[in-house]
């Protein structure tokens, strides 16, 4: 067996094998050098990224409270479902979407789509899959069967909750998820894709205050996405609380009266606003119909959306600021102020209303009765239309001059008609303060004396928001200062520190002489004392002005089965201090009922008057 011939061991082959070994190890070493020495830092970062995950820690949104600290909007604990795309193998995504979709009440395709979008954007960041808070059972299922739901996380979240939802929805609005489109611009401001943002109302207006600042925590996790330990934590900052000027007690008193009227079909819509004339603070703002803003928080159903959209009264619109109406006789304040200020009229200006109709150029302009001889105070108090036709447009039959539409436009604009008051709420309407120039531009027609007559008694082209009307009377009530109406009183930090205090903001001083102020205030008080605005057993010296505007048929029923009544009723009032000689008032209020019946109140024609008396007496004196 021992061979001296060793031909079988071929040196060349051994050399080749040796070279092969050298090549193998050289290749491996070169590659390792490249990976470890050249690119080591890059891969070290990737390993850290693997291991560590920085998760946002949600910050509580600030609460919204009334002036006395009564909470109107707060947060409840809930659960949200998110997916981190990098933790979800692409091959399993379709399966997961199928399983997860029904649990979060979403179409699986939508779930998968949301994950795709996030995967393209930043797969390490969670994307919120649940549009509404998920039930505790679902949250538990997802946590316990995590092997069935790769990449899925259940996170605690806080859910916005509105205590008196329908009552305050016109004011507060609601929050909603940031949309894909908005997120592009919002991410730089620190918003997350899972964030909520104020959509309407004060939630939108004061988003900057209410929004908290996210904290974060850095966790170490294993390949199965289990959290191994927390590496770092930065606490979130709760958003600031917004203190409103609203007085919940007054708000509820107004609601009690107006909601009852709507519920009993005495009128179909109603607005009540109360304001402190001395600084522009809104004490109450009520608009009926409202809506349940919690619907939007929990994910509004198609049925609910249909209900809101199908209501021709537009419940989503805050009627106090968002829609415009003819002011009716309440506008005689503007006509009167114009005539007084321009020297066309004074306290003793007499108009003999011997007939209930004034005929000019063959057209008839009616009053509601033949009043007889009226001076300014009684003309205003009895709400004589012919008295104010004469002040506004004059009487061509006798050659008597009126103050004219330009002057009415000037004083009306000074009192804030035709432009936004600038209240801190989105969706305010401007209204219409017409003038001959306006008519020419808008309708391409010349202004007529009939236009002046109609405007003089608040009919025709002039259209106002309830807030504008209240604001105008507040200016007279406080002695001539236009304070910007506002709802924000204070912003309070999470520790109770005052971040911001809203100061009264003067828009302008309206030039009204002391005499004319006294005269207008006296006239407004006379409206009540002579019983035109009838207040039985009046306990407060309320001054004000009624208004009624007929706007349509008062026969039959509307599409929702409500009685068609055909009248708007206004009562805009203020509560003078003492004997009404000082140009100051505690509170000003407007009550507006839409589509109300002339016959609701046999003695006074106007349901707003009685409601105003009851509300103000209950508020100022306490309910007996």
């Amino acid at each position, binding site marked *: *067996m*021992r*061979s001296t011939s060793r031909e*079988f*061991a*071929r*040196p060349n*082959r*051994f050399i*080749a*094998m*040796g070279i*092969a*070994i050298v090549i*193998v*190890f050289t*290749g*491996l*070493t070169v*590659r*390792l*050098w490249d*990976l*470890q*020495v050249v*690119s*080591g*830092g*890059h*891969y*070290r970062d*990737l*390993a*850290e990224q*693997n*291991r560590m995950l920085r998760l946002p820690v949600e910050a509580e949104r600030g609460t919204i409270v009334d002036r006395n600290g009564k909470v109107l909007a707060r947060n409840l604990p809930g659960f949200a479902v998110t997916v981190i795309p*990098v933790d*979800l*193998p*692409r*091959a399993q995504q379709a399966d997961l979407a199928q399983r997860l979709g029904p649990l979060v009440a979403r179409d699986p395709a939508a779930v998968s789509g949301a994950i795709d979008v996030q995967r393209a954007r930043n797969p390490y960041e969670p994307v919120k899959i649940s549009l509404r808070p998920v039930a505790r059972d679902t949250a538990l299922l997802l946590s316990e069967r995590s092997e069935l739901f790769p990449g899925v996380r259940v996170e605690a979240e806080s859910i916005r909750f509105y205590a008196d939802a329908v009552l305050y929805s016109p004011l507060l609005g609601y929050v909603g998820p940031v949309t894909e489109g908005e997120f592009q611009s919002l991410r730089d401001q620190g918003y997350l894709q899972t964030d909520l943002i104020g959509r309407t109302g004060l939630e939108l207006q004061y988003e900057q205050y209410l929004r908290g600042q996210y904290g974060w925590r850095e966790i*170490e*996790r*294993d*390949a*199965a996405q289990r959290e*191994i330990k927390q590496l770092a934590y930065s606490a979130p900052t709760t958003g600031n609380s917004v203190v409103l000027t609203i007085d919940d007690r007054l708000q509820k008193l107004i609601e009690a009266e107006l909601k009852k009227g709507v519920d009993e079909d005495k009128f179909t819509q109603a607005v009540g606003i109360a304001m402190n004339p001395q600084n522009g603070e809104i004490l109450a703002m009520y608009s009926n119909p409202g809506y349940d803003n919690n619907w939007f928080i929990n994910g509004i159903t198609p049925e609910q959306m249909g209900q809101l959209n199908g209501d021709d009264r537009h419940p989503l619109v805050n009627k106090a600021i968002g829609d415009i109406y003819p002011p009716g006789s309440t506008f005689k304040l503007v006509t009167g102020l114009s005539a007084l200020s321009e020297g066309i009229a004074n306290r003793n200006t007499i108009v003999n209303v011997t007939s209930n109709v004034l005929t000019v150029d063959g057209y008839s302009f009616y009053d509601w009765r033949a009043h007889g001889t009226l001076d300014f105070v009684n003309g205003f108090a009895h709400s004589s239309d012919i008295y104010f036709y004469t002040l506004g447009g004059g009487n061509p039959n006798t050659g008597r001059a009126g103050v004219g539409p330009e002057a009415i436009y000037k004083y009306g604009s000074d009192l804030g008609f035709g432009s936004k008051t600038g209240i801190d709420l989105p969706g305010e309407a401007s209204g219409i303060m017409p003038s001959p120039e306006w008519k020419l531009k808008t309708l391409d027609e010349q202004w007529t004396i009939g236009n002046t007559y109609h405007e003089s008694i608040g009919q025709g082209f002039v259209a106002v928001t309830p807030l504008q009307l209240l604001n105008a009377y507040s200016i007279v009530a406080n002695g001539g200062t236009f304070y910007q109406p506002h709802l924000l009183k204070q912003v309070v930090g999470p520790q109770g520190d005052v971040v911001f205090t809203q100061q009264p903001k003067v828009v302008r001083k309206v030039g009204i002489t002391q005499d004319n102020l006294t005269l207008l205030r006296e006239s407004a008080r006379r409206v009540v004392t002579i019983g035109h605005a009838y207040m039985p057993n009046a306990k407060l010296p309320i001054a004000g002005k009624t208004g009624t505007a007929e706007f349509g048929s008062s026969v039959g029923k509307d599409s929702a089965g409500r009685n068609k009544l055909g009248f708007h009723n206004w009562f805009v009032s203020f509560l003078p201090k003492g004997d009404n000689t000082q140009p100051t008032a505690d509170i000003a209020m407007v009550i507006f009922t839409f589509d109300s019946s002339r016959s609701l109140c046999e003695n006074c024609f106007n349901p707003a008057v009685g409601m105003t008396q009851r509300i103000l007496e209950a508020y100022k004196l306490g309910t007996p």
Partner: protein
Amino acid sequence: MSVKAIEMRRSASPLHDRPHARRLDQVDPYLLIATLLLIGYGLVMTYAVTVESRTLTGDPMQFVIRGALWAAIGVAVMVAVAMFDYAWLGTFAPLLYLLMLGLLGIVLVIGTSSLGAQRAVNFGGLTFQFSEVAKVLMIVVLAKFLADRIDKIGSPVTIVGGLVLLGPAVFLVYRQPDLGTSLVFVAIFFGMAFMAGARLWQLVGMLALTGAAFPLIWSILKPYQQARLTAFLDPYADPQGAGWNIIQSLIAVGSGGPTGKGLTAGTQSPLGYLPIAESDFVFAGLAEDLGFMGAVILFAVYILLLVAALRIAFRAKDPFGMLLASGVVAMLVFQILVNVGMAISLMPVTGIPLPFISHGGSSLVSICFALGVLQSIAIRRPGPELG
């Protein structure tokens, strides 16, 4: 088998031509040192990968204890095998061939499934990877076959005959399915045929034929195997799916840097980002903990081992010994290349253990057996006194 070897350790062998005591000075010291160093390195890595694992449940030390036990058995087997004249293996080659096919057949019949493949047999609470044993047996069988025909090595009949021997084993292993190990068999064959002096055009021709048949081979591959090959070419095409292992392994290796994060200080392996971190991807864990330095040290010891083995082959007294040693070298080089290459994305993902470093008794004991054979060859080489 190994137990039996230990029992027979002290008994005399009838074919043993000289007392072994006089042969101890012929033991190849380089091979021995390299072997012991690698066994030690492997134990350290088993410790590092398992002890600090934050995903492992149960007593982590059990892996280290089991590894040490296997190492002891391996050394014992090596010593015992070295005592015997390797000519015995040639004598029993036909039987060993049948034994090999039997073992591979048993795996298919009663093997336990793990990760979708039937590769191991559970017996008495222990898990045996028979294909590891089969690789060494295949080397013996091919060495015997080629050595007997060393004068007719240029004949196509010889090469085809070797392929006929190889075929059933490759097929059985592939059926487990274990594509990687079946490729090890092929590599062993090519390595041995080359060292035996087969004509180069025949070897190159076979490789070319394999290349030409690639579309056919592709079509019989299982979808996951196809996915691995695709992922190898572009791991980022599906970073959460088929490319995941490759990317995570690259991250582990790269993040180790020049000197590593320190033993047990790695994060990729303990946090479970490296699948099968104690075996298939053990190199990635090693490179993460010990860095470029640790890898180069490992390579140096491997080279020492391989060169020593090649020297033994070159100095073997007969073609059988030369081919046995060559087969072992081919097997080790191929496994190192594929396993390390896989961790650094030079090779597709396959489940081939890294010699000595991957945790696994069957692999370690099989290699020790093979190295025992090498020592036996070294001991029985023609001494200088024989001129």
